[in-house]
């Protein structure tokens, strides 16, 4: 009984934490998605320097721990040059997560685009479309449905990785949970916190499933 009462008391703080976790994940994955589209197109480009740059970017962000990237954006960049000082913790976390997520999403997008039948490019060419028109009108729209499941997966990964921001003292679910835990000298708060994560994950999984159905209308009726 006491536990339930405690949980009810923790809910408002946990929900505040959830706001930070969810909004960070949404903006980071969203911005990452846009950046990733350019990275993916760049990596498929015939221009050598662009190709190298995008490959290098992806190699770096996938090859180093996100925790270090986050540290470096918040603590390292200001030391490199004061111009790059980011005072807002949320914004710092956003930058690190978006840059990181873009690297993973770029590979997802590249795979989706390359899975589109070559005949689609040929038909677009035969109709006189430029490369940009072909991508915009034909290839990218068809890739979207194939993108949704892996991007949904990436979203949930980021949602959980967002717990890393507690190390720069940003009050996400994990940070709030740890504070409550140390002030009550009990780890019981982890139970509602984990349930909260599960609820959020379940809601977004549902949304991504619906999106996938929505974009499948044209396939095999």
């Amino acid at each position, binding site marked *: 009984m006491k536990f339930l009462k405690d949980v009810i008391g923790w809910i408002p703080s946990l929900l505040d934490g959830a706001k930070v976790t969810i909004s960070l994940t949404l903006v980071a994955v969203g911005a990452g998605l846009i950046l990733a589209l350019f990275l993916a197109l760049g990596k498929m480009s015939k221009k050598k320097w662009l190709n190298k740059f995008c490959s290098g970017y992806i190699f770096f962000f996938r090859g180093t721990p996100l925790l270090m990237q986050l540290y470096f954006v918040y603590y390292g960049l200001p030391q490199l040059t004061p111009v790059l000082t980011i005072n807002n913790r949320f914004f710092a976390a956003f930058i690190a997560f978006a840059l990181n997520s873009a690297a993973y999403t770029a590979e997802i997008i590249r795979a989706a685009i390359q899975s589109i039948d070559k005949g689609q490019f040929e038909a677009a060419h035969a109709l*006189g479309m430029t490369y940009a028109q072909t991508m915009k009108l034909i290839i990218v729209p068809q890739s979207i449905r194939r993108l949704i499941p892996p991007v949904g997966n990436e979203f949930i990964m980021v949602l959980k990785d967002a717990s890393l921001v507690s190390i720069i003292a940003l009050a996400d679910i994990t940070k709030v949970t740890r504070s409550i835990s140390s002030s009550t000298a009990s780890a019981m708060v982890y139970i509602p916190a984990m349930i909260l994560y599960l609820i959020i994950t379940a809601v977004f999984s549902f949304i991504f499933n619906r999106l996938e159905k929505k974009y499948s209308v*044209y396939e095999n*009726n």
Partner: protein
Amino acid sequence: MSMIRTENICKNFGDLQVLKDVSLTVEPKEVVCIIGPSGAGKSTYLRTLNHLEKINNGKIYIEDKLLDHYENGERKFKLPAHERQQALLDVGMVFQRFNLFPHRTVIENVMIAPINVRKVSKEAAREKAVDLLNRVGLGDKLNVYPAQLSGGQQQRVAIARALAMEPKIMLFDEPTSALDPELVGEVLSVMKKLAEDGMTMVVVTHEMGFAREVADRVIFMADGKIEEEGTPQQIFQQPKSDRLKQFLKSVISA
């Protein structure tokens, strides 16, 4: 003026030479059928005409305008990108596997290029698309997705889609090879009507009946070369080369 003229087209895939000095001229309103055993280079040749395949040697003219000139793998002449694109707008193509855009409805498939490439207004493009789809007998399928159509219907949409760009030349790359036998006729009859309306056509086909009936000229290709050419009468009744005789025997006995 000729619609298409190629001189000494050669193409290699690695060490394999798939086209050997293919020279061909197609006159306005002419229907040319290219026949031959598989691996003869028929489709590859057709695809070089609108730059789906690069060539290693030769010249390609579309409506007497030089588009490409290579000598032994070295590019001698290249039309600026926008001029080349403009010239290629006069060349429409129909593929073996249809290649319709699966995420767009039938009418959108037909409208998308005129709107975005020719910059035609939506209304005009729609009107034209409805008209073309009626002509190929699919006026009642405007708003369905390609996956809901049979192969023959999809290929007819693909023909309408190509025609919507008002090309002067139509290339057909084995347009009926991916179809169930009972669906071949509906596509061939659309093509026949197109030929009667005076379209310049180059058709790679295994349909000997179509070639015999519709073609003005039949090209027989084997081993990357034009082995023999002539009227359908000459090719089918009086074949000269052994290669062609052998080929005709094999397709007729099949």
